C-alpha cells in the first residue's frame, strides 16, 4: 500500500508492504543505516528511533502503524551540529564498537526530554532495554548525567 511518512523532517512516499517493520524501511528501502538491526524481537534496543519524540523499537513498528513523524540518529544531530546528548557522548568517549550507540543515544535523548534531571535509578530503568556487548554502561551513565547538567533541565 502506498504510504507517506515523515523522517527527519522529510516526507517520503513509499510503496512497500504495510507490515514491513520501520527498521527495514529505514535501512533497506531508504538507505538510512544509522538505525541498527540487533535482534529483531525488541530485545536489544539497537533499532531505537523516535516517533513523535517517543523512543520506540523500529523493529517492532510496522510501516502502516507509524503514527507520526520519525526521527532517526541521522536526524537527531550531525557530526558538525551534534545534539547535546551526542556532544556528551563524544566528550566522554563513550563508544567502543559503537554499534549499539545510535540506539543508546536515541533512548537517552528521549529520557532527557521527559526527565531532564534523571537519577541513577531512572537512567538504569529507562536504558535497561538497550544492550551493549562492549559494556560501555558506566560511560553511558556518566554521559547522560553530564548532558542533563549541561542542558540545564
Amino acid at each position, binding site marked *: 500500500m502506498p504510504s507517506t511518512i515523515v523522517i527527519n523532517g522529510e516526507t517520503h512516499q513509499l510503496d512497500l*508492504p504495510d507490515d*514491513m*517493520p520501520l*527498521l*527495514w524501511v529505514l*535501512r*533497506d*528501502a531508504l*538507505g538510512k*543505516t*544509522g*538505525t*541498527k*538491526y*540487533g*535482534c*529483531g*524481537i525488541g*530485545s*536489544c534496543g*539497537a533499532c531505537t528511533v523516535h516517533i513523535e519524540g517517543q523512543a520506540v523499537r523500529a523493529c517492532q513498528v510496522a510501516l502502516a502503524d507509524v503514527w507520526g513523524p520519525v526521527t532517526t*540518529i*541521522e536526524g*537527531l*544531530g*550531525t*557530526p558538525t551540529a*551534534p545534539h547535546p546528548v*551526542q556532544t556528551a*557522548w*563524544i566528550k566522554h*568517549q*563513550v*563508544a*567502543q*564498537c*559503537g*554499534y*549499539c*550507540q*545510535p540506539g543508546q*543515544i536515541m533512548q537517552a535523548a528521549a529520557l532527557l526530554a521527559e526527565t531532564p534531571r534523571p537519577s541513577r535509578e531512572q*537512567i*538504569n*530503568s529507562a*536504558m*535497561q*532495554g*538497550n*544492550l*551493549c*556487548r*562492549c*559494556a*560501555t*554502561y*558506566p*560511560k*553511558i*551513565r556518566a554521559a547522560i548525567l553530564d548532558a542533563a547538567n549541561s542542558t540545564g533541565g
Partner: protein
Amino acid sequence: MAQLGKIARRSFLVGSVAILGGTAFGAWLVARPAENPLRAPAGGAALTPFVLITADGVTLITPRAEMGQGTQTTLAALLAEELDLDWQDIRIDHGPAARAYFNAALLAEALPTRGYNTGDTLHALGEYMGQFGKLLDAQVTGGSTAMKDAFEKYRLAGATAREALKAAAAQRWGLEPAQLRTESGHVIAPDGTRLPYSALAAEAAQQPLHTPALRPASAWRYLGKAMPRLDMVAKCTGTAQYGIDIRPKGLRFAALKTNPNRSPMRSFDASAALAMPGVEHVIDLGQGVAVVASSTWAAMQALDHIHCDWAPAPYPPNSADIMAEIAKAFDLPANSTLRDDGDGAQLPSGATQISAEYQLPYLAHATMEPMNATALYTGQSLTVWAGNQAPMFTKKACAAEAGLPEQAVDIITPYLGGGFGRRGELDFSVFATRLAKALPGTPVQLTWPRAQDMRNDFYRPAAIARMTGAVAGGRAVQLDAQVAAQSTSQQGLKRWLGLTPAGPDKGHVDGLFNAPYAIANHRVRGYLAPLDVPVGFWRSVGASFNAFFQECFIDELAHAAGRDPLEFRIDMMQAEFPQGAQVLQALRQYSNWASPLPPGQARGVAFCYSFGSAVAQVVELRQDQAGIAITRVTIVADLGLVLDPQIARNQLIGGCLQGLSAAMGEEITFAGGAAQQENFDSYILMRHAAAPDVEVHLLENLPRLGGVGEPGLPPAAPALANALFALTGQRLRQLPLSKQVAFAGT
C-alpha cells in the same frame, strides 16, 4: 576512507618498496621483505606500506580491525608521533589485505613460554616462523597483540616517511636534510619557508629510504596521552559504516539459515518461499539455504517458510552428554604438561589437601552487529566487504570459493560492530561470495538473522577443571591442576590454515600453567576433548576459563590455610613475579581491602597474567531486597607501557564487565543437537542496571608492552565468585551464577 578506496584498492599488488617497519624484528624481515601493497597515483607516494601521500594530503594505513578497542586511533598516533601530523588532520584507512600487515606479535604469543618470566621471546620468532610460511598471512586482529606488533614498526614507518619528505625538500631548496624540521604536516626550512607534505610526495617517492632513530618517550606528544578517538564522532552520529551498512548501487539483500546441528542439509522445499513478495532467489548452501530478496526483512520472512531436512549433529545432541564426553578426556593422555615443578602428584607431609571440580559452559560471542558480508562478483573479479579480523585468510578463502586468483579479490574491512574473536572466522565472507558468484554483476549483502548468528557460532568451549592442592604453614605447597575442554587452537587454525598443529596447546592452559605463583609442587596438565562442537577464539580464549579455575581454587586454598585471600596471593607471588605482587598491593590500597564492610556486603579478589599484562580486580557485593548487587569494581593493571590511558581504561572496563556478564548469565546449551539460545531473550547479557561503576588504576612496571583488549576479562568471574563466597559462605563452582543466586538489575 573513500580516498584510498578509489586510489589503491584495485592496484595493491604492484609495488616494490620493501617493508621498512620490519626492522623491529631484526634480520629475518630484512631477508624476506613483504611488498608494499599500496600504489600511489601520479604525483603521490606510498612511503612504506603505512603512509600514503597524495595531492589531498596524508592517509595513514591502520590495518587492524576496529571493533571497538580503539586500535586504529593508537596505530595512527604511533605513525603521527614521528611523522608530525596534527591530530585534527589525521585521516586513516584500514587498507587492503596484504602480507606487509602481518602480525608478528601474534606469532610470538604462540610460543609455549610462561611470558611473565621469559627473556625476549621474539628471539625465537624467526625460527618459529620459518616452519609456518602460511602464517605470513596472519594479518590478524586478535590476541591483544596490535600494539606489541606496532610499537616500533609504526613509529619507524612514520619516521622513515618523514625523513624521505625532508630529503625531498632539501633537494628542492639546495639544503641539507639536517637543516630542516617538520611540523603540522609541513617541512620547514631554516628561514621559515614551509612546504606541505602533499607538495613533496612525488619527489619523496624518489628518495632512498633510511631508518632513522626514534624519538625518546620524553618527546612524545600523542603517545601516553588520552587522544580523542578517530572513530568517535562517526559512531555517535550514526555515520560510521559497518559491514551491514554497505550499500553499493543495485544491492540485493539476503539472509540465510544453516543446519543448527552443524551438519549438512539433506533436502529442502522452497516452493512457498519463492512465491512470497520480494523474494528473488533461493540458493542452496549445502549446509542450509539463503534467500535473496528486495529487503533483508523479506529474505528473513521467506526463510521461515522454507522447510529444511537437517542431518543430525556430529556430536552428542544434549548438553549433559557433551559434558560427559568432555569429562572423559581426563582419561586420555594429557596433551600438555606445561608446568611441572617439584612433585605435583605427591602430598607434602603434614600438609592439608583439598580438591574441587569446576565446570564452565559454552559461550556465544553475541556481537551486537550480527555476522554479515557483502560481495560483488563480475566474472573476473570479486569485491568482499566484511568486518573481519583476518583479511588475508578471508581473501584466500573467498578466492578459492569464487574460483579466482587471489590478485582478483579485493577485501574491504569496514568497522566491526564487535568482534571478540568471532569475526576472525571465514564463514560469512565465503557464503556471501557464494551468493555473489551465483548472481554475477549484482552486489549481494548476506545478513545472519540473530537466531542464525547465535546457533551457528563458534563457541567459547565448555571446560571442566579438577584441582587438587595443599597448604601448610599458611602457604600453598602443592597445586595439581587439570583442565579438559575442546581445543580452540586446533579448530581455529584448521579453519584458517587447513592444518591442525600438533604438540602442546598453549592456549588451552593459558592462565593456568603460567599462573605466577611460587608453589613448590606445581603441575598443570591439559586434556583435549575430541568433540566436534564448533568452537573458536572468544575474548581472552583459554584464560577466560582457566583464570576462573585457578583463582577460585587459590581462594579455596587461602581459606584452607586460614589466610586473607589477597595477602595469601601476594605472599606466593612475591618471589615468582614481583610486578604481579605490586599489582595486588596497589589493589589492596585502591579497593580499601583492609577496611571492614557492614553486614550484607563483601569483597572478592582475583588476579590473572594474560596477553603480557598483569591484571587484578576486586568485586564488591551487597545483598539487596532485589537480589545481590555488584556495587563497585576496582581494577589494577600493569600494562608495561600505556600508549593511551583512556583507551586502555575502557578496554579493561569492557573486558571486566563482559567477564561479569558471562559469569552471571551467559550459557549456550544444546538439545537435539542445536543450541537452545536463539536471541537476547534467552542468551542473557548484562544490562545497564546490573553494571557497576568500575575504577581503573594503571601501572607501568613490566619490562614489555602488554595487551589490553583481553586481559581485563579473566579475573572478573573468579573475583565475583570469590566475593559471593565471602558474602554467603557458599562456593559456587559452576557458571552461570544466575542459576544459583539472584542478582539485582537482571
